[in-house]
């Protein structure tokens, strides 16, 4: 049976808009932080307080690079910054200083290059985008370029999260310590994705504009702070009043190279997706401009490029939780499923559009994915046991449609509401009981972006059942979502909203499949004691599944 939005309980507009952000005095200035009993972190980053880096690179550089520099210096700079085309451009532009034949020939070569690249661009239209546009286009975040929170990552093992902000800084929050380290780096620009290393306390991989950064955030020093040129560590007793002054005087110090590793590879920019292998040994990165997907051995800082013809790049990668497979989406209507033992891949061409998002079931046997321009969720089932020789033999032959999210109008007390449409991203909770779907919405058509949540049932037959909608305050839209992997009592969906708030929506249930050894007896009551009702509709608190 295919699930569609018409079966959903209607969203309740205006429900539960009790004030969420009780502002304690000490937190009113900075992003407010407080901890619930469940150690969830609610964060608020007002859009106005974050200054995006103004970086129209070429124009500002041209202004700084004064013309009193010699042609040689300028050419060397252009070669370093923009490669051959930059060099040719520089020579062609300074025709007064170069011999005539050099100027003319460089102009000819430049024209030829542009012609070739436009031909290439006509094959792969995404190559004509600028780096920023490309990141925005392929990011899993809705409206990435104007979003205060550009990335969010829960630590896979502890209650700790990292938030990437519009001003290119990353903050790390840990309920056990009241300070939050800020990570800044010269190369940390336009962060597209970030992920903590599994089976490790402190390593964080960040996909940046033209490189990959791996931070080592020392978990024991509570007030670690990485400033300006970034990589030195202050270990000192925490005293909030003193810290700001101290840090402002420090940027002149030299960084120690220990805290951030820079991994870059020629032609691999912008990096739009990173994924650690679940065993923590490898890191895979993808860039829409690079046809190769890079598999990094981070400790050794070496990478193996995996080239395949077709697709024109790799936009989004997602590792199956058991580590045996890897989904890699490309900018054209093709995606691949890699098998990670011998690194062979299976092509899935003939989609209607490019693959927008994908997620794996916890046992790695099922892949759900969505296609741009379509409003359905597809599923692939992998039946073979991974690890057999030629591991792809038992792979599926065709994808099946498991849910239809086309537009429907739902009857609410305020009148009909339109819901549905294209899908931005998918998230499956680590126990495989809830599936969250971020719908793009369409402001013109009166459809807001919202999150639809499905209950998932894997045995005996795979099924999606309607659960409910997650809505924010009026006028806010969800931008990014992730399930908290360390929530004991069910599933907890962390949502970053368009107004810069980050909240957590809990779904309480007893896991039907994997009884947790730690959780005995009945789970705690869903709605916490004495606190205002949570962000979402009541409908989301589902009955217990025994």
């Amino acid at each position: 049976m295919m699930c569609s939005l018409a079966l959903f309980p209607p969203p309740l507009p205006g429900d539960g808009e009790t004030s969420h952000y009780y502002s304690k005095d000490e937190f009113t200035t900075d992003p407010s932080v407080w901890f619930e009993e469940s150690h969830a972190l609610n964060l608020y980053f007002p859009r106005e307080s974050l200054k995006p880096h103004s970086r129209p690179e070429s124009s500002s550089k041209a202004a700084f690079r004064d013309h009193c520099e010699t042609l040689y210096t300028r050419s060397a700079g252009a070669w370093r910054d923009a490669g051959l085309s930059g060099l040719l451009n520089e020579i062609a532009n300074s025709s007064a200083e170069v011999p005539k034949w050099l100027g003319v020939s460089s102009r000819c070569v430049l024209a030829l290059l542009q012609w070739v690249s436009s031909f290439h661009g006509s094959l792969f239209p995404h190559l004509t985008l600028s780096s920023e546009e490309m990141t925005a286009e392929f990011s899993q975040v809705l409206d990435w370029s104007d979003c205060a929170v550009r990335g969010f990552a829960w630590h896979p093992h502890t209650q700790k999260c990292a938030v990437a902000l519009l001003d290119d800084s990353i903050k790390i929050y840990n309920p056990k310590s009241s300070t939050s380290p800020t990570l800044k780096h010269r190369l940390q620009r336009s962060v597209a994705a970030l992920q903590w290393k599994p089976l490790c306390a402190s390593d964080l991989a960040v996909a940046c504009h033209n490189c990959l950064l791996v931070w080592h955030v020392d978990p024991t020093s509570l007030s670690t702070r990485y400033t300006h040129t970034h990589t030195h560590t202050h270990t000192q007793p925490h005293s909030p009043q003193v810290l700001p002054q101290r840090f402002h005087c420090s940027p002149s110090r030299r960084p120690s190279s220990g805290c951030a590793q820079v991994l870059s590879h020629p032609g691999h920019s912008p990096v739009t997706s990173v994924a650690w292998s679940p065993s923590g040994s490898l890191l895979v990165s993808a860039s829409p401009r690079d046809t190769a997907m890079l598999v990094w051995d981070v400790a050794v800082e070496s990478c193996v490029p995996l080239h395949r013809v077709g697709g024109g790049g790799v936009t989004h990668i997602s590792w199956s939780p058991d580590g045996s497979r890897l989904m890699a989406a490309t900018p054209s209507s093709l995606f691949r499923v890699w098998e990670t033992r011998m690194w062979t891949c299976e092509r899935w061409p003939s989609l209607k559009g490019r693959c927008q998002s994908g997620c794996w079931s916890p046992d790695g046997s099922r892949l759900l994915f969505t296609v741009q321009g379509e409003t359905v969720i597809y599923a692939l089932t992998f039946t073979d046991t991974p690890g057999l020789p030629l591991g792809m033999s038992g792979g599926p032959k065709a994808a099946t449609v498991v849910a239809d999210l086309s537009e429907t109008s739902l009857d609410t007390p305020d009148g009909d509401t339109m819901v549905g449409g294209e899908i931005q991203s998918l998230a499956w909770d680590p126990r495989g009981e809830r599936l969250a779907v971020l719908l793009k919405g369409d402001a013109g058509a009166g459809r807001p972006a919202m999150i639809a949540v499905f209950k998932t049932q894997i045995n005996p037959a795979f099924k999606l059942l309607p659960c409910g909608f997650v809505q924010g305050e009026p006028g806010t839209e969800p931008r990014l979502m992730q399930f908290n992997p360390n929530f004991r009592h069910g599933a907890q969906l962390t949502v970053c909203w368009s107004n810069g708030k980050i909240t957590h929506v809990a779904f309480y249930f007893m896991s039907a499949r994997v009884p947790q050894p730690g959780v005995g007896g009945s789970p705690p009551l869903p709605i916490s004691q004495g606190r205002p009702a949570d962000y979402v509709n009541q409908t989301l608190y589902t009955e217990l599944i025994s």
Partner: protein
Amino acid sequence: YAKYDQTICSGHSKDGLCTGSSRPVASIAWSVLLLPPTTALYVVLSRFSLFHPLQWLTECLTVLTSASAIFSFILLCGVVLLVGFFNLEYYSVVPSIACSKIALLGHVLHPRQFFHSLVHCIMGVVVAWCCAVTIGGRYQALGEVTGTSHGPQMCLNENHLVLLLAGAFVGYSHSLLGLVHNMNYISFHTVQQYKYLCFKGTLPLVMRASAVQALYSLRNFLALYFFMGYVPRAWVCRTLDLQVDSSVYSLDCVSGLLDLSLLYQLWISASFLLFTWYITVLLFRIFVTEAYSFPVQPTFQEDAHQCLPEVITGKQPTILKFLALQDLARLSNHCPSRRQEVFSLSQPGGHPLTWTAVNRECLSLLSDLTERLVSHHDNVASNGRTNRSWVLFPPPGGSRSWVLAHVHHPLTSSLMSIIPSRLPSCPSSPHVFPHVHHPLTSSLTSSLMSLTSLTSSLTSRCGPWPICFMMSDWVLFSLQLPEASSQALFADSQAHIWALEGLSHLVAASYSEDQYGVVQTTLPSILSAMLMLQEAVDRHFKLPHASSKPGRSSFSMGDSSYKTLRFALRATLKTSIYRITATFGEHLNAVQMSSEHRKRLQNFLEYKE
């Protein structure tokens, strides 16, 4: 390529692998098979002429079918076979790391290496001769007949000579750079791919590397020829009784060497030479490091020596042990059915023989490394003290020539006696390293001590002489390439990395898969071995230079991954301990261990390491 792969797989039978011959032979066979297309490409490129495309192609065809080309092709095949043989003979899975510049010099001057260089030099000449024959024209032969006023005369063709000398130089520098960059070292990749895909992925890099390396070698050669070119020329003329044609320019001047066509031919030939040799090296590496699946339990009793526990515990050859450890790491991660075999009990008797053997070998590897690190740490601490006392020593004096003569002798002789002993670059056991390190340092320190006593006795007689002090400083400096000692300690750490991965994956899997509890009885020893290693590694990384990363070098055929093995080991060690703690969680509190270890483990349980 699947078919190709299968033929290769079926090609090496088990005993073939055990004798270690079939894989290298297959790799050499493939490099010979790849020679025709490479040669054809070379011919096409060397005869390149932009303005006569038709003539160019027909010429290429005639050259390729001519008898001389076929003869030189046979010669090239012989060269490739020889290069393959040298790869097989000289390769090692543990890099030989020179801890000082003197030691490196010792490596270069070692007879074995000298032989290697000499043969490569000669092969370079042979390849260059083949190239000269293929190019034809003015490069064809060494002598040419010119008509002078005294009638026809046999004259030296310097173009040909330059080509041959360039071949010799490139061959020699290939051998030398191979030693310096550890080209004989074979590293195993974390990402396993099928051989064909691996080859395809690396081919562009090899092309680039050979072209770039040819350029550098050529630059050095031309500089050398510019200054010293007259020596071989005169020698050849004298030996072969050739005349120097005074009507053409000699090539060891600027205008002679700036001949574009000559430079192009030299570069293309050097690239061709390096490319064929690099391809041989590359294929050899790919074939040898390909994962091999050992049977965990023997089907028949006579196969027992070929199954995993036996091979892992065996000492010789090292490549087999490495392959077995790699297989262990892979099976523990990917193959539930083979894991089951490891956990199983022996049929009569009910003993977990397989697991015991695997576990014992892995633990002994880990404790070996721990021991090595601890002794190195102690050694450095004590050496630091002696060094300091050295610096405090008053500047000694003496008569220059006298002291130099007497100082140099004990030092160099003791060095020369040490270096050859550590040169066999494939140590049979990891124990080699501490021994390698100690005699070098200690004997040098002792000889230096004798030097000081000598010079101090001289101080009384003669005036102060600072140069001697500078020289002893220099010796101390050249004694320690700071990072190298750290690299040498971890030179064979790939084995430890696999042991850690294999153990931790097996232990983690045993939580749900181990029916008889064979793993749980050994859990305390595994945990304590890992925690002790963790402590030793942490202490080692606090030493100066241990945590400094080498600069990333641009691609060359030398594999520099051994320089960062210690970082990989540190990361794997942490991940392994976390894998166990994440799987067992609070249950680990029931495991017997010392309070210090429990404290450390608690840090891991709370994700604070």
